[in-house]
């Protein structure tokens, strides 16, 4: 199923790019002001523009330029569009997580002589990411659903396919089938997150200690 393929590829890329963006935006000091400003502009822009518009612009615009070396695959541009848009959303989730870690944690890490990067890598980010798993999953359910927007490019993904089938047979249940397929993917994702959170809580808290 093409939606799953688009979803999986985008998700992996987004997890990384969004984290990088969030870290860039958290860099302290006046030296990094331009970096922070760029990150803010990026986030504001891609959160402000409707996803479908980005997909249309890149998916029809880029191949039409006919430049040498520019990929013409619409699926490629669909993935790029989703990555651009969702990186903005997900980086905000990461950033909220980073800011929720108390500054005393960084002080403790730095006081051991760890560098700023090491403190981030071993102390701040592990705690931040753990805290934002639920909202992160929320965004990924959104992403999974938004893969249907790729249909505007004429890519025959599940929504497009059900439209075709519906038009051919005047049978509305094809949409129901498509909806069921989406839910079948998103529900296991939700249960998986619940399991992750429960496992983390079990590991950190004793049987006798109230959560």
């Amino acid at each position: 199923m093409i939606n799953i393929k688009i979803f999986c590829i985008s998700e992996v890329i987004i997890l990384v790019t969004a984290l990088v963006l969030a870290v860039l935006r958290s860099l302290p000091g006046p030296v990094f002001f331009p970096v922070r400003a760029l990150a803010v502009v990026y986030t504001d822009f891609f959160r402000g523009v409707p996803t479908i518009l980005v997909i249309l612009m890149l998916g029809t615009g880029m191949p039409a330029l006919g430049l040498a070396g520019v990929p013409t695959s619409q699926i490629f541009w669909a993935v790029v569009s989703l990555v651009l848009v969702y990186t903005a959303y997900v980086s905000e989730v990461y950033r909220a997580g980073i800011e929720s870690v108390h500054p005393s944690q960084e002080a403790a890490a730095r006081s051991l002589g760890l560098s700023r990067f090491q403190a981030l890598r071993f102390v701040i980010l592990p705690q931040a990411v753990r805290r934002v798993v639920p909202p992160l999953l929320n965004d990924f359910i959104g992403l999974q659903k938004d893969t249907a927007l790729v249909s505007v490019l004429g890519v025959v993904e599940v929504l497009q396919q059900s439209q075709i089938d519906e038009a051919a047979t005047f049978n509305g249940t094809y949409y129901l089938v498509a909806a069921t397929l989406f839910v079948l993917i998103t529900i296991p994702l939700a249960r998986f997150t619940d399991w992750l959170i429960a496992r983390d809580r079990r590991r950190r808290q004793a049987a006798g200690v109230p959560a």
Partner: protein
Amino acid sequence: MSRPVLEVEGLHKSFGKLEVLRGIDLALAEHEAVCLIGASGSGKSTLLRCINLLEPIDAGRIVLGGTDVTSVAGRTVNAVRRRIGIVFQAFNLFPHMSVLENVTLGPRKALGLSRGAARERATELLGRFGLADKRDEYPDRLSGGQQQRVAIVRALAMQPDLLLLDEVTSALDPELVAEVLNVMRELVEEGMTMLIATHEMSFARDVAHRVCFLDDGAILEEGPPEQILDAPREPRTQQFLRRIVEAGRL
């Protein structure tokens, strides 16, 4: 006497318009344990954070083992911090790591010790302070006293030249204070050079080599514990100690 482990000269520090430290002069010889006493807000914690370069200072000098570290930057800051251990009032253990991981993180990542060597060092220290069976627990599962002992072990695992303790028993339930004070007492007896901000006056009297009374960002009076605690010269020191006595803490 050998060269002081730590020398602080004319240290000034302000937060905005509020001047927290107004010219601190302080020196610590090797194996010396000095207690900083004084009311909340007198600048004890800020002084310790400045010495550990966690706070930039406005004026003055900090000299560590003969090396001026006042204006070091970048990687050198990390190198300086490796030589100074600090233990915080609120423990600040890393909640996502086990006790062993908390203690081995610094030696492995900042000192470059191998996993095996770091574990060995950590296990030895944890055993010495009665925490051997807590090695694989997470901080949330420990009592406050145990957490603070782990935090002390975490600082010791770096084998620092100087240990800073910032009111390490203030956040503890009264019945847990003794176990942490005992660890500190042991360290003083072993000859660890320590600067201890504390409200535990009887501990200061028994253990400290010298007591400094900090008032409004300056060291108002200093000397042997008997002198400062029993026969203070300054009216402000007398007033402070009277309040402590009234609160039943001496």
